[in-house]
């Protein structure tokens, strides 16, 4: 187990290395000039050239990469071209909103989708199952921003229950934090509810046909115990996998949600950095996302041991 953990942790190094090289090179090949963007509309070519020199963008790409990578090895992600702030500090400022949104979304999704999926499997073919499957198709199909506008219109503008936009830090109070997070989390969780509910249903359905379920029922165990202790536990591996994939997919989802709800998180930072060709920030954020992706996958793999003791690493 520990050897597996060490192996997996070590394997993240080449992954991050490849990501670092690819991101750096791809950014330099994309059109757009950070110096021209920073200089403003009325700047002339000479002024832009001086800014380019100040940013070090007139040096050969390999030299630029060497400097950036050298700093990276010392834990320095560099300084944002656009904001003149350390990238690590920028990421630090944006981490809480994104983590809050992602955690709340996954919590809502799991707490809603898993019971619904189990119930649908239990009542396979019935009205509940059909209704849930219908809703899950809808949940998949409706774009996040459309759902966001609909929810804002109903819940915020018509009913006045929740704020339209913005984010409050936990330090500002749990209440404001929750009320500002509620609509974005629900918006973003819909697609994950649809996804996780479908997988849970399919997985539990398969398990319900197993011999040990028949045995459990024959022993006279209550149906709730059969469903939760026997069926769901044994169906947990694919569900854990899909939740892990969901967390990784959230990285894309938060970009749109943060834009619509004006949440100053990592998604919004990424969009701004891409639009401004803020190379150091883009590189830093993508490295962080890649690391998060690898870490989530590792956690999912480790969770298999918990759900299925037969699995050994």
């Amino acid at each position, binding site marked *: 187990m520990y050897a597996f953990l060490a192996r997996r942790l070590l394997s993240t190094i080449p992954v991050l290395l490849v990501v670092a090289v690819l991101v750096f090179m791809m950014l330099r090949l994309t059109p757009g000039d950070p110096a021209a963007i920073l200089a403003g*509309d009325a700047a002339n070519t000479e002024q832009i050239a001086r800014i380019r020199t*100040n940013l070090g963008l007139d040096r050969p790409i390999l030299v630029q990469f060497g400097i950036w990578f050298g700093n990276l090895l010392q834990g320095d992600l560099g300084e944002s071209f656009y904001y003149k702030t350390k990238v690590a500090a920028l990421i630090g400022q*944006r981490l809480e909103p994104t983590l809050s949104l992602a955690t709340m979304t996954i919590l809502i999704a799991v707490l809603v989708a898993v019971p619904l999926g189990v119930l649908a499997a239990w009542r396979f073919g019935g009205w509940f199952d059909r209704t849930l499957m219908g809703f899950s198709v809808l949940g998949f199909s409706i774009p996040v921003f459309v759902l966001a506008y609909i929810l*804002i219109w109903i819940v915020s*503008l018509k009913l006045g229950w929740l704020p*339209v936009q913005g984010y409050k830090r936990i330090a500002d109070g749990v209440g*404001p934090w929750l009320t500002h997070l509620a609509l974005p989390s629900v918006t973003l969780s819909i697609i994950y509810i649809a996804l996780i509910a479908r997988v849970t249903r399919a997985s539990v359905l398969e398990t319900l046909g197993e011999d040990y379920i028949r045995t459990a029922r024959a022993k006279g165990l209550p149906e709730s115990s059969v469903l939760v202790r026997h069926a769901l536990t044994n169906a947990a591996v694919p569900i854990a996998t899909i939740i892990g994939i969901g967390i990784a997919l959230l990285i894309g989802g938060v970009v749109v949600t943060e834009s619509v709800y004006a949440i100053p998180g990592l998604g919004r930072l990424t969009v701004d950095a891409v*639009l401004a060709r803020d190379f150091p920030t883009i590189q830093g954020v993508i490295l962080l996302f890649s690391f998060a992706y690898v870490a989530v996958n590792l956690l999912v793999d480790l969770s298999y041991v918990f759900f299925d003791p037969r699995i050994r690493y």
Partner: protein
Amino acid sequence: MNMKRTLVALGIAAAFSAPLSLAQAQTVLRVVPHSNLAILDPIWTTAYMSRNHGYMIYDTLFGTDEKSQIKPQMVDTWTESPDKRLWTFKLRKGLEFHDGKPVTSEDVVASIARWGKRDAMGSALMTFVERMDTPTPDTFRIFLREACGFVLEALGKPSSNVLFIMPKRIAETDAFKQIEEHIGSGPYIFKRDEFKPGDKSVYLRNPKYVPRKEPPSGSAGAKVVHVERVEWNLALRDGQAQVNALQKGEIDVLEALPFDHYEAMKKDPNVQLPNWAPAGLQYMARFNHLHKPFDNPKVRQAVTAAFAQQPFLQAQVGVKELYRPCASMFTCGTPYGSPFGSEIQSKSNMKKAQELLKASGYDGTAIVIMKPTDLASIQKLPDVAAQLLRQAGFKVDLQAMDWQTLVGRRAKKDAPEKGGWHMFLTAWQAHDIWNPIANAALDTRGEKSGWFGWANDEKLVDLRNQFMRELDEGKKKKLADAIQARAFEVGTHVPLGEYVQPMAARKNISGFFVTNGNLYWNLKKN
């Protein structure tokens, strides 16, 4: 037991209620600016957001009122020698930086020197400046090599780069490096510790600011602050979400109301649409003069003739009361705005354009037009341009890209087939183009002049130099007319009409006055 329950309930209530922060107890004006604020040095960049940030925390020597007249701001009195080569300025009393130190003439001279290295009009002025000195802490003098006619216009120019006065130690920063400290003597104090890039920018009322006595007008007059705190919401950038927040009362002022929402907001009983910056903006089509076919003035004339303004304004703005055709390269309604010499555009039609193109010897080169897909305020203009060019007989290659790609690409002098370009369309705020010196598109020094497109015309350079030296206002007006007529003749660029960017505010905000940009003094929140 009851006591225990009560305590638990109180605990939960306390946890779920926001602590009453100082900010909430004060009058807070919540503003959604037109864009994101990234660069805090308004001299280092010409970005409008940095300029607006500058107006919050810095003061200016002169301002420009709503009639485009230059008025004193930090300056109390000034004199000019009979030969107009020596200008002596005396600062008014009570000027103080946010760190408590008095504003001195040394701060002013250092600020002028840095600004003069970056701003186009400032650089032009510095070519006339022999030296500056500071005989007393509240007096500074500018010695000119020869008289020039735009000293006050430059010192009081209202748009980027505005001459903001900074403490000497800050103003001595290399003009090509951004300043690290943000201390001014303006009506607001910048809360650096609360500035979160891409999230919010906060300004506190400067209690020591001494406003002028005159009523506010443009960037001139009294800068009286009636709110304790202004918060710029930099995260709220989706147009629909901005309107939702305004309707729900979560924000007070929306600087740039999307045109699509204009009619709906007019009907909202809680929202007002103040006429805040009526001078507006002007659309412009810019040629790349370096490459075929736009190195040929006859081809540029054909385009000018084809580009009637109405189709551009209708397509892009759509709301009739928000746009106006203006056959002038200087903003209509400002001193030099005039249709003089614009007949090639104002009295032309497509038939004329086709004839001109035929006579020009156009070789069928496809015109590369750069179309920004993510900038709602100008994204429809290239489609109209492409259609009109096709009708005139041009081949067109309309290339879609995001605005920042366009910004990078327009700085390239390469041939269009090698990643360069033929044409882009943009918009300028009124006071960036209101006279021949400020208007970058009229700088025709070729590749030297720098502004993208690199127009080249000696006669225009000469007329512009005459304008700089002219002291008589009547003659300056005639020279501005001559410059415009020549610019239309050689086709530096094509003006495509003007529009007003609507802004929206909650009804409980009062005190709006006519400005050149987005200025946050004199506003009251009831």
